[in-house]
């Protein structure tokens, strides 16, 4: 009798300890998840809070006199002649007209800087599209300078002492006058999405980098996907199980761990110096990134192919299918969701890579939007890096906004991977 009661006491005690241990373990798990979510939340919050203001840009409304004598002195109607007119002068004149009391040379220079240096080119474009404006005085909205933009958005504070501010008291007075006149307005920043890089923050955009990323990833996909899938099929289905195959497998697994900058060095040495491909082109960038992504696709592909049950293969073989027919009719279609998921994850990784592109010249100031695979281009993460390094205050918010764009692309790609996996999931 006593044996049984001591035994059940012991069991009860150990049961309590076990429950306590399980509770602790559960708490650790929840704590880890909460910590990860908190870090993620902090990242998003920091980026979004710094970057959301970049989606708006300040514009200033100027009354521009489109002097026909200046634009088209000989009345030729030729757009090339019109393009050479002194639009900068027209903008300056307009500002002088708004503030006629400004006389000193120094002050006038400060006044002219209220409008962006790109305003002249905007006026040129407006005249080209609306030729009937020539000879008239019209109110035109042009981009304001980045210092004005920062002041309107509150990054440059007016209540600080003048020598601690980038905008002098005089400039502040002019800006406030323009605001009172309804001539300064914040609008949606379309330039951010349509322009390439620029030294002036108000004229800078991510479109050049986005196009570069697009072309680069296209090349990466076109190379890495077929080669990777073919290699995975060969290694899983056809390769004889001997030493050579083992060596190949070990090397592929190791390739996945090689630091990405090494691929950049390879690109420089082989593709640029030996073969002579054009520098800074998405073609070279794509090939380098394809080499980097290949091990990921091969490893994911092999796992997917291995997961196809042997019963399907046996059924197909039993009916008289040859080895390659079994692979292409049955195994590959069933392994495709896993292969696609691996591919998209590899692509998302490649989208965020900067180090290998450094060596092949894609970390550069490139203004023109690339039109093809051989035009010099840069990619989104590189653009973020270059802007983060620039001294102008307005680039801080644009860097965060570009990060948001990049994160948006990455999230979309990963969601596509999840959706594809769900869609093609089959039960057998």
């Amino acid at each position, binding site marked *: 009798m006593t044996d049984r009661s001591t035994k059940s006491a012991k069991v009860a005690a150990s049961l309590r300890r076990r429950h306590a241990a399980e509770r602790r373990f559960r708490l650790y798990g929840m704590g880890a998840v909460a910590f990860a979510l908190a870090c993620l939340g902090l990242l998003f919050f920091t980026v979004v809070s710094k970057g959301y203001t970049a989606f708006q840009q300040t514009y200033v409304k100027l009354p521009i006199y489109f002097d026909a004598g200046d634009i088209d002195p000989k009345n030729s109607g030729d757009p090339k002649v019109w393009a050479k007119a002194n639009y900068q002068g027209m903008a300056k004149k307009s500002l002088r007209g708004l503030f006629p009391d400004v006389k000193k040379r120094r002050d006038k220079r400060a006044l002219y800087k209220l409008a962006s240096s790109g305003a002249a080119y905007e006026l040129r474009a407006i005249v080209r599209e609306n030729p009937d404006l020539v000879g008239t005085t019209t109110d035109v909205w042009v981009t304001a300078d980045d210092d004005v933009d920062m002041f309107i958005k509150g990054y440059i504070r007016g209540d600080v002492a003048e020598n601690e501010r980038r905008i002098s008291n005089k400039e502040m007075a002019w800006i406030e006058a323009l605001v009172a006149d309804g001539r300064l307005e914040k609008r949606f920043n379309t330039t951010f999405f349509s322009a390439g890089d620029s030294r002036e923050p108000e004229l800078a955009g991510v479109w050049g980098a986005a196009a570069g990323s697009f072309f680069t990833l296209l090349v990466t996909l076109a190379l890495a996907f077929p080669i990777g899938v073919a290699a995975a099929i060969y290694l899983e289905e056809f390769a004889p*199980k001997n030493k050579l195959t083992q060596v190949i497998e070990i090397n592929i697994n190791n390739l996945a761990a090689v630091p990405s900058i090494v691929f950049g060095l390879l690109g420089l040495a082989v593709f640029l110096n030996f073969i002579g491909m054009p520098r800074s082109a998405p073609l070279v960038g794509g090939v380098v990134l394809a080499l980097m992504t290949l091990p990921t696709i091969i490893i994911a592909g092999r796992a997917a192919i291995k997961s196809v*049950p042997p*019963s*399907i*293969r*046996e*059924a*197909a*073989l*039993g*009916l*008289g*299918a*040859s080895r390659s*027919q079994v692979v292409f*009719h*049955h195994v590959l279609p*069933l392994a495709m969701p896993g292969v696609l998921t691996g591919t998209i994850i590899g692509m998302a990784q490649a989208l965020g890579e900067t180090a290998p592109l450094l060596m092949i010249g894609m970390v550069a100031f490139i203004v023109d939007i690339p039109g093809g695979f051989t035009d010099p281009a840069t990619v989104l993460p590189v653009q973020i890096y270059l802007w983060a390094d620039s001294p102008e205050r307005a680039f801080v918010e644009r860097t965060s906004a570009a990060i948001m764009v990049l994160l948006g692309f990455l999230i979309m790609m990963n969601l596509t991977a999840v959706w594809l996996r769900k869609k093609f999931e*089959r*039960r*057998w």
Partner: protein
Amino acid sequence: MMTAETKTTNEAHMDEDGGLTDDTVVSMNLPHLTFRTRNVEVFYGETQALFGIDLDIFRNQVTALIGPSGCGKSTYLRCLNRMNDTIDGCCVTGIIELDGDDVYDKALDPVHLRARVGMVFQKANPFPKSIYDNTAYGPRLHGLADSKADLDDVVEGSLTKAGLWDEVKDRLDAPGTGLSGGQQQRLCIARAIAVEPDVILMDEPCSALDPIATARIEELMDELRENYTIVIVTHSMQQAARVSQRTAFFHLGNLVESGDTEQIFTKPSDQRTQDYITGRFG
């Protein structure tokens, strides 16, 4: 039906290998020989799985292979359509002839062989495609149908022969994996007969099914016997007794005894057979 008289004749007209001489076959009007296997030995690497199997399979008959687990019956079955080729390190020796053609002849493509010898597996394994595509896969693969109408006929015919047509005729596009266990196995049988094989090999086809589905398939086997030769591996002696005309008893890689089902089950010659049948080991 084998009579006692015929049995004696069998014993009297054996050739050196232990089988019947060709003249005997012709003169006695015995069923035609489909598979002739002599001294078949199978090695998995170093381990030997089958020791000197001599067995004949006759046309339009159901031959059952019985024996305790691990005795080599599935291994022997898989030799007949060269499925053992897919296993690494598996080595098959001996003579295996299908209608006089050496099955392991280098000139013979296993694909060809498998178009003549179909297989149904223990766990039903329909492809994750539609019922129509499952059945049509074989004929499409070997180019047996000339037109869509032809293919439709083949599919309908196979499904009818497999006894599945009435149940699926209005949902041929439904996935094959959506059927019940018994239906799936019948689909696999339909898939196998769609290529018009000479022989159908069945590896424990009913072991994963309930008694009703099992009965249905056993009925099917009897119907199919009219047109095809069937070799079935089964761990159920009762099933072997029900469906087969000839039975072979395997034990530890050896063919202990083979003969008419009735004779094996009522008057076995070997003590081991007797012990197995009476359930002394299993």
